[in-house]
């Protein structure tokens, strides 16, 4: 067991270093701004005196390394400074929205993961049949479609034509859970469609990869029924790649929500980021980028750790 801990700890340390480098990149990217933030904010209306005032207010007179450490110190304890546009604390505007985004992603994941894995097993079982071919074409179409296309199709048919679900996903913290689930059903379904297609393909590929192994041949030769070969013999050995794919898709969910949130006007962090980018509100852009990157890295780490834990050969290294 000790070995597992050291492997996991090593991965965690590596993830932390990556995150640190990314924070540096995010900081330096804003430094690359022609002129500086004060000039970008004031634009045409910049005069000597208000430039100097804004620079003092934003602490731009300190040298860059010192500002980086101050920013990083704030970020670690959850303080991202104040927004350039609304002058409010960035953390206060991000927190409720981040919760919303996580809820949407979780909602989609809870539906998508079981559906994708069982469908993946099914298409592996019925591989090279008409069912498999149609599934292949449909999943390819779903992966290849931009999220906003799927989102608008769902709005058109499930909201405008039938009126089953609302097209705009407005939520508030005090809304009862059931109503919330109903209101966010269409954005969640959009995400589910994209993610299921991908996970299903990978599950199928992971299982089919194993089917050429001698022990599967053996199971077939001793007369085990086809579904049992897949479920009892192939599936346990494909958990590692499947868990990997699930974690990667969850990472995708958290970042892919940006477009879906804009389509459904959902008050999440993605929409905040897009607004901040068009208003050039750099503290908000930096904070959102860092949060997205951190979530992404965390889920990638989870993928690594998950595949170690499900693989006995990695769990008990010789």
């Amino acid at each position, binding site marked *: 067991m000790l070995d597992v801990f050291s492997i996991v700890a090593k991965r965690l340390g590596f993830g932390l270093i*990556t995150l640190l480098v990314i924070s540096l*990149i995010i900081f330096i990217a804003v430094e690359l701004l022609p002129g500086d933030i004060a000039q970008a904010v004031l634009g045409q209306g910049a005069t000597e005196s208000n430039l100097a005032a804004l620079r003092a207010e934003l602490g731009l007179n300190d040298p860059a390394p010192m500002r980086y450490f101050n920013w990083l110190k704030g970020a670690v304890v959850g303080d991202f400074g104040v927004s350039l546009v609304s002058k409010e604390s960035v953390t206060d505007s991000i927190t409720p929205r981040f919760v919303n985004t996580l809820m949407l992603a979780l909602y989609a994941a809870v539906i998508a993961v079981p559906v994708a894995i069982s469908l993946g097993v099914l298409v592996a079982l019925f591989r090279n049949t008409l069912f498999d071919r149609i599934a292949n074409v449909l999943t390819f179409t779903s992966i290849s479609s*931009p999220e*906003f296309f799927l989102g608008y199709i769902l709005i*058109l048919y499930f909201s405008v034509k039938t009126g089953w679900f609302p*097209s705009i996903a407005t939520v508030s913290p005090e809304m009862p859970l059931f109503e919330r689930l109903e209101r966010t059903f269409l954005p969640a379904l959009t995400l589910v469609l994209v993610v299921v297609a991908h996970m299903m393909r990978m599950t199928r590929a992971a299982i089919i990869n194993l089917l050429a192994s001698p022990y599967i041949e053996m199971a077939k030769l001793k007369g085990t029924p086809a579904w049992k070969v897949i479920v009892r013999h192939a599936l346990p050995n494909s958990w590692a790649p499947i868990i990997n794919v699930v974690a990667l898709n969850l990472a995708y969910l958290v*970042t892919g929500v940006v477009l879906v949130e804009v389509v459904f006007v959902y008050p999440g962090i993605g929409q905040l980021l897009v607004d901040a*980018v068009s208003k050039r509100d750099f503290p908000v*852009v930096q904070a*959102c980028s860092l949060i997205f990157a951190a979530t992404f890295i965390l889920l990638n780490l989870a993928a690594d750790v998950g595949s170690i834990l499900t693989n006995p050969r990695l769990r008990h290294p010789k």
Partner: protein
Amino acid sequence: MEFLHGWMPAFMVLATIAGVLLAAVAMSWLFRALLVWVLPGEGSKVMRSAPLTASFGLFVIILYALAGIFAPWVAPYGESEVIASSFAPADDKMLLGADQLGRDMFSRVIFGARNTVGIALIATSLAFLMGATAGLIAATRGGWMDQILGRFADVIMSIPSLIFSLLLLSIFGTSAFVLIVIIAVIYAPRVFRLTRAVSGDVVVMDYIEAARLRGEGLWYLIRKEILPNSKAPLIAEFGLEFCFVFLLIAGLSFLGLGIQPPTADWGSMVRDNATLISFGEITPLIPAAAISLLTVAVNFVVDWMLYRSSGLKD
């Protein structure tokens, strides 16, 4: 009855999907037969064994290429020509009606093939140029250069591409040139990884050793020995990267941060005309459908190429 009424659109959707799939199957079969008949020797043989999905993909790609190249001749109006009132309905002069400023929607969809696909192609090519060159150099040189390039690629790839491009666009502004460079920088590491892996396998071959002993330079090794032997996966990778880049550009344009007006572009067309959807119109979905159709087509062809080059026969 109320309940049944609600289900009718669902049946309609299913019937439409089935109809479209059938039509696509028939068309791809015809197109494959045509290619088998038209193409000379080797090409005809290759096409005969191609799956229907691949011939469908080829057909769509050729169609888009023609629409893009000959856009000014195919489209009835210019891309920023105002010819009607805003959101004017379709008539015999305007196939798909007018957009939010009264420009012909059909002409703009055609011009979108030139602009959106063109920018995606340029960005992918640039990413390929940078990534593949770095990958080939890293594989042949090895040592510290390989290490530094590898770590650099790791870091860029660990930031989600949409988020990274939003961050960079907020800083450098949104012009077509900036967009192309940013996207190329974000996608180059992926190309680098693959090129490094593929050519890493080639570099250890005896014939490379022989060429090195002959005293051939780095450039010769890359061009004459490594590149020809890693061509197939690289071409497939180009197709895949193109899909990612294309979807990213479409997404950014949809967010209003990609290709800027008045250039006709599929992503921003969806956004600008989205209000029509709440009136039950499907016209705003047409540019979006154009995006997914091309991506599907490229994916189908890439899938077929990978299958051919891997020699998998399951």
